[in-house]
């Protein structure tokens, strides 16, 4: 409790795009409830604050911390540990923190490959082949930038996490609901869910909220969305040959993408209890391919040009393998 008697609230972004922050602002007037009920002590995007201020806080003095973004470098991990230490409730907020999300796609490549792309790429003019130095001697002393990890990790891979809130970004109405819940809890009107619960999402998958008509599924070909003349606005996209991740993706987003004719790409992550999101999609999609002949099966599968990308777009760092072999051999070879 701070002197004004309000519980403390913090929000931090690690390796992320900032969309989660915007999503929080998108809860509109509800944001006022946040201010009314919380004392915002640390939120780099919204207000000025120094790490040392946080370090100075007593342990567990922050009631609620929404942590978004993955763990990409030493600084991210340091802040994750620091905020864990200072917070009572640490929420992995958004797809990056829960699963790795788009930044996690970097786990297909080794650190070298990433640096090559960034510092030597066609769009880069770097005649001296300069690469970042973690330590650099200056007259003023040693300059230090946080080392870049071989892989991006999810929040729960570096610290203990209380709740997980998926979404890229989490739907604003879900955020509002969570905020509301926490406030209720504060006023003793509700109970916190058990530790480890996924909050701000449904128990089932996107199809549950999807309005499209569904039949028994058999897939004879896969097409990219731009390849078909007119998509049936009523019919299940998967049945039209469009690789839609809806069946394997946790509900909670109100099936926004399928609703407007765009395939679900899986930002809400796996359903309750699922160990590996990509494996679920693979198994489901492959099972309904309408062929018994290996050659024909392969021909149909050719319609999925980038399986790993399609099935692990948001969840690679949290999948069983976590990263491609090159990202593993990084530094270990």
């Amino acid at each position, binding site marked *: 409790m701070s002197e004004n008697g309000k519980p403390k609230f913090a929000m931090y972004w690690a390796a992320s795009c900032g969309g989660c922050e915007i999503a929080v602002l998108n809860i509109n007037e509800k944001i006022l409830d946040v201010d009314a009920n919380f004392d915002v002590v640390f939120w780099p995007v919204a207000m000025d604050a120094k790490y040392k201020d946080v370090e100075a806080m007593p342990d567990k003095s922050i009631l609620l911390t929404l942590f978004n973004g993955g763990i990409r470098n030493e600084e991210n991990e340091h802040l994750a540990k620091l905020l864990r230490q200072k917070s009572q409730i640490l929420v992995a907020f958004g797809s990056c923190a829960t699963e790795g999300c788009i930044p996690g796609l970097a786990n297909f490549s080794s650190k070298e490959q990433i640096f090559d792309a960034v510092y030597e790429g066609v769009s880069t003019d770097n005649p001296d082949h300069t690469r970042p130095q973690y330590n650099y001697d200056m007259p003023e002393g040693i300059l230090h930038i946080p080392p870049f990890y071989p892989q991006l990790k999810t929040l*729960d*891979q570096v610290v203990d*996490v209380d709740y*997980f809130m998926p979404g890229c970004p989490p739907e604003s109405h879900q955020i509002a609901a969570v905020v509301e819940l926490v406030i209720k809890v504060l006023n003793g009107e509700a109970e916190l869910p058990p530790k*480890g619960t*996924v909050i701000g999402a449904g*128990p*089932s*998958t*996107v*199809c*549950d909220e999807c309005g499209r008509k*569904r*039949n*028994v*599924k*058999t897939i004879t070909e896969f097409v990219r969305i731009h390849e078909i003349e007119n998509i049936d606005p009523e019919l299940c996209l*998967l049945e039209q040959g469009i690789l839609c991740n*809806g*069946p*394997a993706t946790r*509900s909670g987003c109100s099936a926004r993408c399928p609703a407007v004719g765009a395939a679900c790409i899986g930002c809400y992550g*796996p*359903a*309750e*209890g*699922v*160990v590996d999101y990509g494996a*679920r*999609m693979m*198994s*489901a999609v492959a*099972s*309904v391919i309408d062929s018994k002949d290996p050659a024909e099966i392969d021909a149909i599968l050719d319609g999925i040009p980038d399986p790993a990308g399609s099935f692990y777009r948001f969840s690679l760092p949290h999948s*069983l393998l976590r990263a491609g072999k090159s990202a593993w051999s990084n530094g270990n070879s």
Partner: protein
Amino acid sequence: MSKEQNQPQNDKERVGVYICHCGSNIAGVVDVEDVAVWAKEELADEGVVVSRDYKFMCSSLGQEMIENDIKEQGLTRVVVAACSPHLHEQTFRTACGRAGLNPYLSELVSIREQVSWVTTDKQMATEKAKAMVAGGVERVIENEPLEPLRVPIHPATLVVGGGIAGIQAALEIADAGNQVYLVEREPSIGGHMAQFDKTFPTLDCAACILTPRMVSVGEHPNIELLTWSEVERVDGYVGNFSVTVRKRPRYIDVDLCTGCGICWEKCPKKVIDEVFEEGIGYRTAVYTPFPQAVPKYPVIDAETCIYFQNGKCRACEKLCPTGAIKFDQEEEILLLDVGNIIIATGFETFDARRIPEYGYGRLANVFTSVEFERMCNAAGPTEGEIVLRDGVTKPESVGIVHCVGSRDRNYNNYCSVICCMSSLKFAHLVKERTGAEVYNFYIDMRTAYKDYDEFYQRVMEEGVLFVRGRVAEITDATRNPGEEGKLVIQVEDTLAGRQRRIPVDMAVLAVGLQPRSDTKELTKKFGISCSAAGWITEKHPKLDPVATMTEGIFIAGAVQGPKDIPTSVAQGAAAAARVLSRISMGEISLEPVRATVDEAKCSGCRICNNLCPFNAIIFHEDRMVTEINHALCQGCGTCVAACPAGAISGTGFSNEQIMAQIDGLLAFSFPQNGDLVEMVPV
């Protein structure tokens, strides 16, 4: 969510591990003591509190050991490392049950079939055994207490095949007061046995002993006989099969037909009877295969009937005293509900044309044993006269060639069992009826079983000649006047150690038995499996020879492998006994391996909807959720693996069990430099 991070740490379960020596079967290769000690130490964190090794875990003492530990040590899980679950899983589950532990909280790890019997390196074997025990322990912790599914048994039984095995099975079950449907493809029951004249070794007449059985089948109030019919498809599962039978049109009204026989006496169309007469006799277009046929009603063979071919004739119709001929009869499709099925579809004989050097089909006087059976039969094409192909000349010398298509890499590797004895029978009949010189050309004489070898002695005393050696060729290319006009049998006499050319008037090829050519369709239809050779696989070669891997489906007679009449009859009765015990129990309990949908998680995406070949998956449009019918579910788990939402769980083989087993199996790698090293930190 964070399940992956915390390794399976288990503080509540108390696991007992038991390593079986199986005499020296396992202990001879695997260091069982070491495995037991290791499990106690290394798997303590997993909850292993007891770990023992014992000579024979399946012995009553071994089982008691488990029971006592459950009671005294309060074990909540049991892992036995011994033989294949297909042998003793039930044994140890029952033992757990006796001690009050849910039977399904035990696991049997197969370190005999999968380790000691297949591995030479003892250290490697021991390490593999350890890994498998670890896998078993991790898995058993995830096991849930289950109750076996109870399935009611429909009292009716389907018997497929009306040979002697099928007849025996049908009678046994019907006599016990239960409904039997006996389906036979041919117009009459009787099978191969009905073709024979005499049966070895007693030489009693086949018809005399078979006909009474056939008649009682025909008259039996509890047997519905469906001849000229075939099983189309089989749905359902043990206790509740529903079988579709196609009844081909006889073109005879069996209610009017008296079987007087005028129709086939007067039928102008004669055709070679390729089936019952094995191609050396004729029948008419309307016919019964043989006089004592059951049922007595003929069939009209539309393929050959003049009326069906070119719209004229109808002689039989005109002449039938009861107007029983019905050319407009159509095929019927019958739907039968049965609880159990006995398959007794028998065998086919080897096609002697495949061995051209024996000249069958080219040289008139080369006969197959089945042709010869018909020839010997008093009711056969020659009224039992043994004559050459010209139909008149009696042979002065006959050569009987054994193992034609049997014990031969080029054709069938196996021994056809009955040929030695039937060849001896032929030799005797030839002697008896023609006094001709008879040669038997054999590889080995195989006359096991009661009174068989005595018969062999007797035939030898009758002066039949035996030449040990595989026949190279049967030819009409003669080399000297002595061979003129005869068939020359070229053979290496391996006792005399020389090549011999033996001229004979008639050669009889003892063709081997082989699986029916439509065995593949049979196995698909009934969901059973067959060996590489094509014989139906029994549940256990020694201890369960008449059951199949598929619950509720039994086999009897030669469909399971070459067999003589006594054994086929015994198997028919055995299969019947198995069915009867089930009928009297009224229900059986099945493995509770089933899939279940968690409706809260199911999004109604319908991915799983057409994955089930047993139609156990139902979609509820109203609630937009999928449900699985446990009665129809066979527990394959395909839908469990396919569900994108992870909403379907499978008992007995749950994700948790399998994932845990993987963890256990991989927790320790192969020994590098002798001792175990961790592969992945557990």
